[in-house]
């Protein structure tokens, strides 16, 4: 052993301490063993950095707001409905859409890890994966919402969805009043990533 770790030390402790060097060491080792194609890594990064992200989810929301048949299909079987739009795959194999109403606001968390609907929203933001969000969103969602600048109207219940299985949740926000003249593209531009997690509302353009 080139390092002075005992055999009981976890394998990860054998890697360099700096995380950037740690990932480089793993990538180099796996590449030299023939197990990784660095071009495949570039392709994965390209997809999640530039192609798969919250614009997908926003297109789904805008379509649901403008196409009543689609909205119905989305609420009945979101997996099928979003597949129609080409949004399928890893971390989105089983999708459920949950609709905000004047009676209920929906908010999504994964307390056990970081489950998130990748094909619709991309890679989760840092705060979604943070201990503070994971710990608190289930117990005090309204305090968390207040930190995001969201105060719900009196009488609106909060429903927190803890993603404990492979079902991935998309919040269908309420369409803001005063947007009747907007088409689906213009509506999609109003829908933020956070609104589809349930930590933001959608506002009409000023």
């Amino acid at each position, binding site marked *: *052993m080139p390092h002075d770790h005992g055999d009981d030390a*976890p394998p990860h402790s054998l890697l360099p301490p700096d995380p950037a060097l740690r990932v480089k060491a793993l990538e180099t080792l796996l590449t030299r063993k023939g197990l990784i194609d660095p*071009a495949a890594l570039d392709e994965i990064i390209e997809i999640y950095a530039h192609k798969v992200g919250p614009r997908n989810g926003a297109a789904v929301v805008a379509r649901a707001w403008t196409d009543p048949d689609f909205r119905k299909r989305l609420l009945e079987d979101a997996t099928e409905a979003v597949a129609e739009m080409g949004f399928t795959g890893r971390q989105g*194999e089983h999708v*459920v859409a949950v609709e905000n109403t004047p009676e209920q606001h929906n908010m999504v*968390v994964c307390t056990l890890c970081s489950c998130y609907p990748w094909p619709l929203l991309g890679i989760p933001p840092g705060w979604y994966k*943070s201990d503070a969000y994971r710990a608190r969103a289930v117990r005090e969602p309204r305090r968390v919402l207040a930190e995001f600048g969201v105060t719900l109207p009196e009488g609106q219940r909060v429903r927190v969805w803890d993603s404990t299985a492979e079902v991935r949740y998309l919040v269908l926000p309420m369409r803001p009043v005063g947007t009747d003249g907007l088409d689906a593209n213009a509506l999609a531009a109003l829908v933020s990533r956070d609104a589809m997690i349930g930590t933001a509302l959608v506002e009409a353009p000023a």
Partner: protein
Amino acid sequence: MTRVHDMGGRFGDGPVQRAAGDAPVFAEEWHARALAVTLAAGALGQWTLDRSRFARESLAPADYMAFSYYEKWLAGLADLLVAQDVVSRAELAGAEPAPSPLAARRLRAEVVAGTLARGGPVLRDGPAPRFAPGDRVRTRRPARNLAVTGGHTRLPGYAAGLTGVVERAHGCHVFPDTNAHGLGEQAEPLYTVVFDAAEVWGAAEAPGDTVSCDLWESYLEPET
């Protein structure tokens, strides 16, 4: 009974810290690399998603809390690679790498997009559901893996021993408690179960607030 990752309801974490404005998807270049290496290594087919979650949550609490998100992924990956005999401890520590018999399974760049778009559905044929929407159920307590001491489970600690209502049945899904430990998929009915926040936490922020979890049938007992 719990592990460090099971943090739902925990006190003391402070405000949720958010990046300002339009933060990039990957805050650091190595974050992107860590994600990609993890996905590409997973594509070798030597472990399941459930097994990889168990590797991360099995990190020592001191490491889990000290590591940033992608450091947890890297540590879990390194531990899995050794546990599944894909790499040796010596190789991880810097010894000359030996060629791997798994090289033929290497994820090639040209199939990445298709592989990601296919994903890994976990819906399976399985037993008929014991519960139906509207049924009252009680969750098992404590939240633990019945087959493996200290093993993987997806019943959060805060949701153990609670009465809730089945809202939706999702068909049979691969059972993480066995699948994480090489004990087979053993697909079971999966349900969304809703709990009154006042019952979960002793007091709710507002009356009528609820929390739901997606729970496998063997986590549940009928509540009469």
